[in-house]
């Protein structure tokens, strides 16, 4: 569950199975560990019950069946003190109880606060972990889910919870594959920053299903993930046949490869994605805690130029975090934020900033308590690749034109996440990954997410209320209206600057077949891939 980034989620998808999983091809959630989508029962006007059945064939590697107890344990583990699960807690807080039935161990009902539209998908979108492996004595059963959710951070430590947290963290830290899963693959070899090798379990429970749903297909006997930080090296590896699939290939490499003679042996895929390149301001910093200053700084980003330079124009500009391809939810009445340094000057003056008389003196203003604030920024971004470097350089150059110094801080991927969490930045550039199903922004924009997933530290009573209303919306039309309002609010408050949605580019060897490519992360399904059979030699 401790998943620092998308790559970790992709790897975990091979080891674990959720109740429901999205289908890349038709962009819909479908049953995976569950037999079907949950049966929804609305109780009064503030509760809903979602009834699930786990597939009877679903089993752990030791043959023990996956039961409702495992689901209950997994949900409780999310709220177990001592585990850094803040994002999961904010995402699954709406589930208040798991009702199990001793007579039907694979049937259970989730009791949810509210009657939101997206509960169907959200309630089944987490990996199920085995209770027997982590909590063989069932110590977590002493606590109800609500008890754990309401447990104060100042509550006296419980030895059972502490030892459980330690056991789980020890399993995670020792070996990523040590956490047992009911997924189709096992992590057999790995080396940090080099490679991961997954081998298919010889007897996986889903093999007994007829037909095997696409979400549960596991055709390759072995999957090797090679970590190649350098685009040129990865391209060379693809040309030489050392790798079969190159996902998230940079635009220029994609174009160059497509025009090269090597293209004859490759298939090229390009789809839309839900990954938005954006900048975020640290609103906890005194000089960035007002919307006018953030709006002014937003105008230093040349999103159109950056889209052309880094993606060769392929991708979509956006007004917010909702993709323009989601036409019913995208707020097309908002204007795109222009690249407008002159307009930024006017906004800065409105925000109370005054430019010094001599070049190099920068901008200053007096705060409410009389302190002199200086407008200077430290911009943090991931060091790898040229996308973020180009955005950072462009912003720095535009700001320098108005005498605003920007210090660039390219940061290694792991350190980048911890720096954002620690609030060690003024501005950051990154990618936010989304999907078309769930719009629960609590982890990333709600006050509950501050010091966890809410990296900008932005929140207000109005935005909190709107986020809660979106998460609890009971109809598509209502949710769409709220989402449009939320996009307008974010543009007004400008804690983030969404620049453009990235395309999903994948290049694969022509020797592969059954490669499903789509807009949902991770952009393709590795588990359905097969190699084209070699023609048998003539007798």
């Amino acid at each position: 569950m401790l998943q620092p980034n998308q790559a970790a989620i992709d790897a975990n998808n091979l080891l674990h199975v959720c109740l429901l999983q999205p289908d890349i091809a038709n962009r819909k959630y479908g049953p995976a560990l569950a037999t079907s989508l949950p049966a929804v029962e609305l109780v009064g006007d503030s509760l809903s019950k979602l009834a699930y059945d786990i597939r009877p064939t679903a089993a752990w590697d030791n043959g023990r069946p996956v039961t409702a107890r495992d689901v209950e344990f997994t949900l409780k583990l999310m709220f177990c003190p001592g585990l850094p699960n803040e994002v999961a807690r904010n995402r699954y807080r709406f589930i208040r109880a798991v009702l199990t039935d001793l007579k039907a161990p694979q049937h259970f009902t989730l009791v949810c606060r509210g009657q939101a539209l997206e509960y169907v998908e959200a309630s089944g979108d987490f990996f199920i972990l085995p209770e027997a492996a982590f909590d063989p004595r069932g110590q977590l059963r002493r606590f109800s889910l609500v008890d754990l959710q309401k447990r104060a951070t100042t509550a006296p430590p419980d030895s059972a919870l502490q030892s459980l947290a330690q056991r789980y963290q020890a399993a995670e830290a020792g070996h990523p594959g040590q956490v047992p899963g009911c997924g189709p693959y096992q992590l057999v070899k790995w080396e940090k920053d080099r490679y991961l090798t997954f081998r298919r379990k010889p007897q996986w429970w889903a093999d007994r299903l007829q037909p095997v749903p696409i979400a549960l297909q596991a055709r390759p006997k072995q999957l090797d993930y090679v970590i190649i930080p350098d685009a040129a090296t990865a391209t060379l590896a693809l040309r030489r046949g050392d790798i079969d699939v190159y996902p998230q290939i940079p635009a220029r490499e994609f174009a160059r490869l497509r025009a090269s003679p090597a293209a004859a042996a490759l298939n090229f895929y390009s789809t839309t994605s839900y990954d938005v390149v954006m900048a975020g301001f640290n609103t906890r910093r005194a000089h960035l805690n007002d919307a006018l200053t953030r709006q002014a700084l937003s105008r230093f980003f040349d999103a159109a130029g950056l889209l052309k330079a880094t993606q060769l124009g392929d991708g979509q500009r956006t007004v917010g975090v909702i993709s323009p391809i989601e036409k019913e939810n995208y707020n097309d009445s908002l204007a795109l934020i222009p690249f407008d340094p002159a307009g930024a000057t006017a906004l800065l003056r409105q925000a109370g900033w005054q430019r010094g008389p001599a070049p190099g003196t920068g901008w200053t203003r007096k705060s409410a308590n009389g302190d002199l604030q200086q407008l200077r920024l430290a911009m943090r971004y991931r060091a790898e690749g040229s996308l973020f470097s180009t955005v950072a350089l462009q912003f720095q150059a535009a700001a320098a034109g108005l005498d605003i110094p920007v210090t660039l801080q390219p940061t290694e991927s792991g350190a980048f996440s911890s720096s954002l969490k620690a609030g060690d930045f003024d501005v950051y550039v990154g990618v936010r990954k989304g999907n078309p199903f769930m719009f629960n922004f609590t982890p990333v924009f709600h006050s509950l997410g501050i010091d966890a997933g809410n990296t900008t530290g932005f929140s207000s009573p109005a935005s909190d209320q709107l986020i809660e209303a979106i998460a609890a919306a009971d109809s598509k039309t209502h949710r769409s209206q709220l989402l449009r309002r939320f996009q307008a609010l974010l543009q007004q408050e400008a804690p983030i600057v969404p620049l453009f949605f990235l395309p999903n580019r994948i290049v694969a060897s022509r020797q592969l077949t059954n490669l499903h490519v789509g807009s949902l992360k991770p952009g393709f399904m590795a588990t359905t891939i097969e190699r084209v059979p070699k023609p048998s030699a003539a007798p």
Partner: protein
Amino acid sequence: MLWLGLVGLTALLAAALPLPYAPGVPDLAHVAEPPFGAGAHWLGTDALGRDVLSMLVFGARTAVLLTLPAAVLSTLLGALAGGAAGFWGNKARLAVPYWLLAGAGAWWAVRFPGVGVGLAVAAISLGWLFTSWWRKRELASWPVPVNSVVMGAATTLDTIPRLVLVVAVTAGTGVSVSGLLVLLTLTSWPHSARLVRAQMLRVRTLPFVEAAQAVGAPAYKVWLHHALPHALQPLRTALPLSIAGLLGLESTLSFLGIGLPPDVASWGRLMATVRSEPGAWWTFLFPTMCLIISMISLSSISQYRPSAASS
């Protein structure tokens, strides 16, 4: 010499040169543009849209303003340390109050708990010194193993490859330009120290040094005015090679992306951009040529002998 003069002049005048583009400003309409293509980028642009010519010019400034001071400072540090080690060996002695003062200073620098203890030791030392001066008493002294300390430090530094040491320090925390200057200086002095020490071991036995000691000149004056100037001769050859070594080290660090801040132009950083745009040969060729010619020129200077040239 002509090339090095040109590089030096370019470095000095970089900010005043009428370059069409600033070095750190990406031209988003012309990314990875070849030389003499659209957009008046005479030597093309790199993978981020930065003008190659501007980066070469400002990279020359970085090379001169970073490696020259670092080489001079490290040579100076090495000369003083090696000169002292060669002249005094392990026979120098230092009055006890000075030892105590040094200890108090170290206490303060290392920030040991109890600042008062350090201050008290410093006060006692100063009182001791004043009393001795007042009563014209000779102070007790302890030996200072200058040679062992200097050669031990140099050997310790030499045991770790310089690139590894600098990479380890810079990659962990990141450094500013001034920080990198200090780091290069502190890791580059052993070679100069060894050369000067070896020369000093010969010079200190020469008659004119013995004569100066015989007339009662203080040891530090004999060292500074008589012995050291003669012991510095090997540095005439070593300094250009030290600059070349530091130029290569700075370029390597920048190529690896762990040296200078990302907005400081550098030949090594420009060379590194070819990794994200392998077809942009111009981002590799031009800085490599600058680096090679500079290295060869510095090597030629180190071999230059004025007497041979005049004969």
